[in-house]
């Protein structure tokens, strides 16, 4: 057997044994924070390890268990006998899969249905109990939980996709292919969870087109927190729904998947924009202004981010060379050019004013240093 797989099985048995013991401990003392933390970490570790291999049946169940325990750990749900029973069922299933891996080095596809049923049972509990917590604490912020990757029928903003690509997709629909629209919004703290949303978006199976947007208004460049993820992704893919659910299995609550109706691809850009505009107005109460020339690909948006970050780094330099004023002017030129190409009105005046102040300050600083 592959030594890595052997190691995984050995560790997973140890973790499963520990999980079983902790669940029993919690039945006696359901509010023991230390045990709840340990239990969450064990399930989280096991899920992470299973994800290193291609065992989606196992990962799916463990991921649901991890999410459930995360709610308990955060105080959003209380530990209960029912919760313990369902988790024990789930862990028995994981143990059964481990045995199968030991004898055959793989998991038979026939377990997929059981895996989906158990994961659903854990997630349903999460919704039910969260609802009961909400009804118990009327007036507090409601806890929203998406049971799994969401599929709905609202028309996504397909006008973002260049017409040539939409026509190609429509032609491929005629050949029997199906397309999905994905809205993926990573949590702001995702970088601290070892997540790489950009890589995940780029590696989306069957990716035909993608776009990066900002998930929140960006602060002034100097105040930008580069450790906070404020991105969201719009993706058009030719992959199957199941494949996408599997691919985004670690971030199901951050992803919405919409099956694209071929007719949506044929609607003129103008019509789509009108319809999307109406929807946006209904949601936000104000029209959403789109960039005049939006970046047409993820690569372009990434380049834009890198260039903007570079200007931020340049502005943050604390040296005072003789050419500082020219360096600042060049940054101002880049930012003005950005503003023009993105159709951001009025930015030029603001940049000029900031530049004049920065150049004056640089001159003063140079005089006092000299």
């Amino acid at each position, binding site marked *: 057997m592959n030594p890595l797989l052997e190691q995984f099985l050995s560790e997973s048995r140890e973790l499963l044994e520990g999980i079983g013991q902790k669940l029993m401990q919690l039945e006696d003392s359901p509010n023991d924070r230390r045990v709840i933390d340990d239990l969450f970490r064990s399930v989280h570790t096991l899920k992470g390890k299973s994800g290193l291999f291609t065992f989606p049946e196992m990962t799916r169940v463990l991921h649901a268990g991890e999410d459930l325990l995360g709610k308990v750990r955060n105080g959003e749900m209380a530990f209960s006998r029912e919760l313990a029973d369902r988790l024990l069922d789930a862990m028995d299933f994981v143990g059964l899969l481990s045995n199968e891996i030991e004898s055959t080095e793989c998991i038979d596809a026939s377990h997929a249905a059981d895996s989906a049923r158990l994961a659903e049972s854990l997630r349903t509990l999460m919704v039910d109990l969260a609802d009961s917590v909400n009804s118990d604490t009327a007036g507090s912020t409601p806890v929203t939980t998406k049971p799994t990757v969401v599929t709905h029928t609202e028309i996504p903003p397909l006008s973002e996709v260049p017409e040539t690509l939409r026509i190609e997709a429509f032609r491929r629909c005629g050949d029997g292919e199906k397309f999905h629209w994905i809205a993926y919004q990573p949590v702001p703290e995702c970088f601290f969870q070892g997540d790489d949303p950009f890589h995940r978006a780029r590696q989306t199976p069957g990716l035909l087109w993608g776009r990066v947007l900002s998930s929140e208004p960006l602060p002034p460049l100097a105040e930008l927190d580069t450790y906070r993820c404020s991105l969201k992704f719009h993706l058009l893919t030719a992959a199957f729904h199941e494949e996408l659910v599997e691919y985004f299995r670690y971030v199901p609550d951050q992803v919405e998947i919409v099956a694209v109706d071929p007719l949506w691809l044929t609607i003129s850009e103008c019509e789509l924009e009108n319809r999307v505009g109406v929807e946006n107005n209904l949601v936000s109460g104000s029209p959403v202004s789109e960039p005049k020339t939006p970046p047409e690909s993820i690569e372009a948006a990434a380049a834009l981010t890198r260039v903007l970050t570079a*200007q931020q780094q340049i502005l943050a330099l604390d040296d005072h*060379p003789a*050419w500082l004023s020219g*360096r600042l002017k060049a940054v101002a030129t*880049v930012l003005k050019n*950005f503003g023009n190409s993105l159709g951001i009105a009025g930015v030029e005046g603001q940049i000029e004013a900031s530049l004049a102040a920065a150049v004056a300050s640089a001159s003063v600083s140079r005089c006092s240093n000299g």
Partner: protein
Amino acid sequence: MMDGLILNEGVIVKRILIVDDAATVRMYHRGILESAGYAVEEAMNGIEALGKTLETPFDLYVVDVNMPKMNGYGFLSELRGQEIPQQPAIMVSTEAAPGDEAAAYRAGANSYLVKPVQPNQLLMYARLMLG
């Protein structure tokens, strides 16, 4: 002041200066940028680049690091010290050591790319920085 080169038809073509001592690299970058409709000129080192710039400033500079006579850092700091319109500069280097990028920014570059630069990448950066 109007940037770029005005053609007879009234079309404004952006001017880009490629500064590199390697003829093959200059040819490679020129081919990419000219195919997108930019007017490209070349210089083999920082001294030559500075001379051409002072005659008529460019809209974008694509600058190598290591060159004889005056290297890329020297050229950029001289460029940024001139009383001329300050336009964006991309530094292109074979180096990817820690600190190189910051050194490029200190000298006056606005962006830093590591060779070999893919055609799409160079064009994307040029378009972004030229507006």
